[in-house]
């Protein structure tokens, strides 16, 4: 029996893993290293292969090809119960016939540990539910069950804790609270957390590192800020938050910047932030980075003129504008309501501007809408 508490430790390495179900390739030649002690998120729309990846790490599915390692131990073909890995299941999968205490003690007892009381009490205190030890799962609320599922997993001190959409069944307010709590618990226990979710906000709040998955492959991996500020693909740009992607051509150089021609107007993009393969690019900028002024105002940085507001919605902290550009594309602009003065209205002619450092460039042959539809489906 695996001694989860000591023997197998280290980084999780997924090497060239492919998983096919018949003709369908759920995970396509995935290679990934998850450092020990990190809070790692696999983010993507449903069907992107993230849950299959998680199940292969847990041992509930076997890879068609490739191998999975923890530290120096190859765990690819070991049974789930032989792995130093525990899972917080979607919908929790608590044992309905056992008390909360026995649910949490289940893993300890299977490993032949006789004196479970201290460990169980400690973890019940950690999730702040010591008074529920003798209840049955059905007597608990969704949020409480969620914490018990977490306690049942971490009490075993696994090398790796897997969380499969753990907050999906909770309401928004509770979800926010649990995000902060999960992050705190992870820091407290120091176990590697691998978190699967389709909720980009959840991933960004909790994870140190996010891998964005799409169609069985990792599109991009990095810190939340990295992914948000410097996406490498249109899918990441659209799936993580919202982006304006404008077709353009690289027209020349200006020091560290490319000069890009977008429908006759020139903007600058830092060369480090360009992922273009040739001169054809999609110039990207996040809606909240754009400043909006009445036409004719002198502005610095990247400036686009000729816009007309086609829609303005006031939503408290900000106003969201849709601006129709001369080339018939609608650009999104989120403006903080922190300046007062005359609000801009539908039909006003405007000029848009933003700092060149906020611009990124993607390969011009990409679908500018990749990742935006799936988003709308799931949220």
């Amino acid at each position, binding site marked *: *029996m*695996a001694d*989860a508490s000591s023997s197998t430790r280290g980084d999780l390495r997924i090497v060239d893993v492919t998983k096919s179900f018949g003709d369908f390739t759920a995970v396509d030649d995935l290679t990934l290293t998850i450092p020990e002690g990190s809070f790692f998120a696999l983010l993507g729309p449903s069907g992107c292969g993230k849950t299959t990846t998680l199940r292969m790490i*847990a*041992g*509930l599915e076997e890879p068609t090809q490739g191998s999975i390692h923890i530290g120096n131990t190859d765990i690819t073909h070991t*049974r*789930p*119960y032989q792995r130093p*890995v*525990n*899972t917080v*299941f*979607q*919908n929790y*999968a*608590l*044992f*309905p*016939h056992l008390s909360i205490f026995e649910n949490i003690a*289940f*893993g300890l007892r*299977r*490993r032949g540990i006789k004196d479970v009381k201290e460990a169980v009490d400690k973890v019940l205190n950690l999730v702040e539910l010591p008074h529920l030890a003798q209840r*049955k799962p059905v007597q608990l609320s969704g949020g409480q069950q969620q914490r018990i599922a977490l306690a*049942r*997993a971490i009490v*075993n001190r696994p090398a790796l804790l897997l969380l499969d959409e753990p907050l999906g069944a909770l309401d928004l307010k509770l979800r926010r609270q649990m995000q902060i709590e999960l992050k705190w618990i992870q820091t407290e226990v120091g176990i590697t957390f691998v978190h699967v979710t389709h909720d980009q906000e959840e991933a960004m709040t909790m994870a140190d590192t996010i891998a964005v998955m799409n169609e069985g492959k990792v599109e991009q991996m990095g810190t939340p800020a990295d992914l948000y500020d410097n996406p490498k693909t249109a899918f990441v740009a659209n799936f993580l938050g919202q982006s304006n992607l404008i077709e353009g051509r690289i027209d020349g150089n200006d020091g560290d910047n490319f000069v890009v021609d977008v429908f006759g107007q020139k903007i600058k993009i830092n060369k480090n932030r360009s992922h273009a393969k040739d001169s054809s690019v999609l110039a990207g900028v996040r809606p909240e980075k754009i400043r909006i002024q009445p036409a004719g105002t002198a502005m610095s940085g990247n400036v686009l003129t000729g816009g007309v507001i086609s829609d303005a919605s006031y939503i408290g902290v900000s106003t969201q504008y849709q601006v129709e550009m001369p080339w018939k594309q609608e650009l999104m602009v989120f403006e903080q309501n922190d300046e007062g003065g005359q609000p801009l209205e539908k039909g006003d002619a405007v000029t848009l501007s933003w700092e060149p450092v906020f611009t990124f460039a993607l390969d011009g042959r990409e679908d500018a809408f990749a990742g935006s539809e799936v988003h709308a489906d799931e949220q």
Partner: protein
Amino acid sequence: MAFLHAAGSKVSSLKEKRSLLPYLLLAPGIIWLFTFFVLPIANLARTSTQTPTANGDTGSYEQTYRFANYIDAFLENKEQFSRSFIYAFLATVLALAIAYPLAYGIAFKSGKYKNLLLVLVVAPFFTSFLLRTIAWKQILGEEGPVIAILRGIHIIGDNTSLTASAFAVVTGMTYNFLPFMTLPLYASLERIDPRTMEAAGDLYANAFTTFRKVTVPLSMPGVVAGTLLTFIPAAGDYVNAAILGNPNTKMLGNVIESRFFKIVDYPTAAALSFTLMAAILILVTIYIRKAGTEELV
């Protein structure tokens, strides 16, 4: 004011109508049960303490409140009484042993054949109980396949037969009540969230421990329902013993049947019926208490 008053009384009469509705819905069932269960039971109770009339006519009895009828009836038939419970117990255990893997297979491993297999479980009900039991006699008989195979591999000798034996009665009952065991077992296994089994594996339980610690406890409602649905009718059964048994395999059902219809000894038959009912009731109550599955049902 008058208008308000009128409206008020209308509301209250509506309320009255509504409170009557549950009773109206229950009425057909209550009338049915009263006519075909309560009255006959009361009649049976009355009969059980009667004694033969003085003139000695067969089948003619008068009420003398002789409760000793119960003791006499029981002492005369102790053997059949205990045999009924032993056979019913054996048939229940056998049916459970056969039905559990079957129901487990249908619930978790049958894939697209699930519905077909369920139909097959129920299929025997399309022929009569009596016919199936007679067919069982053929299957176990001298010309049947079972005896040929068992003799072929020398499990039984050439002179041993299977029919007209306790073996035939118990296996016949097992067969006849198998669907009653399988269906509730299937229903409760089917309800188990497969993720709880995955969770057990995730928490260091191997396949056998998962089965013992998770699957079996969670299927207990089905086990209890199935064993009751098998044991209760099996304990009162007389068809299997009549068709597949011999004079030494008589069950209490056979005694009651012959007392009622052949000897026309109504008081003894009635007293035996009551004793059987009471014994089953007590056993079932103890069993349910012990199983303690209330909160899972």
